């Protein structure tokens, strides 16, 4: 029996998540096999709909790599993201989807190791949850 390989969509802020992903790649760190990276100019660019659409379109889990709070280049992008992720989680609860399928992680440009650790932990967590029943 093949092991469930969860699909993860990772939105990455170009000020933090993207450089962290590039560092992880440079260091040749282990990354999930079924990963789709979506670079965004700022995590505040991510609308609630993007998060739901990712789940609707086949993701088993969605993560957002954003800058630390009070460290947003555009001042409040990551704060706006927090509100939108909260709203998406409310909608997911109504659908009956587990909250763990959507999560924000704050990283810095040099967080290559943390970046991969988070993703590999997310793979384990999603394996326990099983496939997204709403995709």
């Amino acid at each position: 029996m093949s092991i469930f390989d969860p699909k993860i969509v990772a939105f990455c802020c170009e000020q933090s998540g993207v450089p962290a992903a590039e560092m992880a790649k440079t260091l040749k760190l282990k990354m999930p096999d079924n990963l789709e990276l979506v670079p965004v100019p700022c995590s505040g660019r991510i609308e609630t709909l993007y998060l739901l659409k990712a789940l609707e379109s086949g993701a088993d889990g969605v993560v957002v790599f954003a800058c630390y709070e009070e460290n947003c280049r555009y001042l409040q992008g990551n704060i706006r993201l927090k509100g939108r992720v909260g709203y998406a989680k409310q909608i997911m609860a109504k659908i009956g989807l587990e909250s763990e399928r959507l999560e924000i992680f704050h990283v810095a440009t040099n967080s290559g190791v943390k970046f991969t650790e988070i993703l590999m932990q997310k793979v384990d967590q999603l394996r326990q949850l099983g496939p997204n029943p709403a995709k």
Partner: protein
Amino acid sequence: MIKAEQKPFEEILEYLAPYGKILLSGCGACVTVCNAGGEKDGALLASALRMARRKMGKPIEILESTPARQCEPEFAQELTDTIGKVEAVLSVSCGVGVQTLARYFPATQIFPGVNTTFMGETVAHGVWEERCQACGNCILEKTAGICPIARCAKQLLNGPCGGSSKGKCEIKRETDCAWQLIYDRSKSLGQLHRLSAIIPAKQWGVESRDSGPRSIVREDLKV
């Protein structure tokens, strides 16, 4: 503008249960401004409904369209072709838009996706408050631009009741007393003397909804 809130998700799921293909029709006017039924909010609801139905093992196809103003016949009629392809319509416009669709598409079931709540103002991003009850005879010129009909729990016309305390209403302690607001604004405008004029009782049975649904007819505009 008209303010609305999305209906409980379970309620919407329940009345869409018999259908396999629907149109989710938003409105580009009032409900867009209050983030209840515009293009974005409609898309969010459609996505959530599709996922919920897949999870239930009863997938649903949802077409999406957002006319500029669903309550205007020329915009509502733009939906004619799309409505011909679906079994039912979920309208996330206000109750007026729902009824416009019901009038123009008599053979199609039209369901409301929002509860139309009040006519109000955006007081902060994401916060809306009631400001007008369409009473039919505006008295704002007598009350410093603050409406006691919409904003006083008792709709008092000539000053506050005994329940006004420290500028707040006894019905809801977090709500400002409308008559405190009227007094404060009149004072700051140097117009306190206006408040000594008695405002006569409103003719509810003549001017307002109490006499049944109202209409406005402009003969010069009829074609």
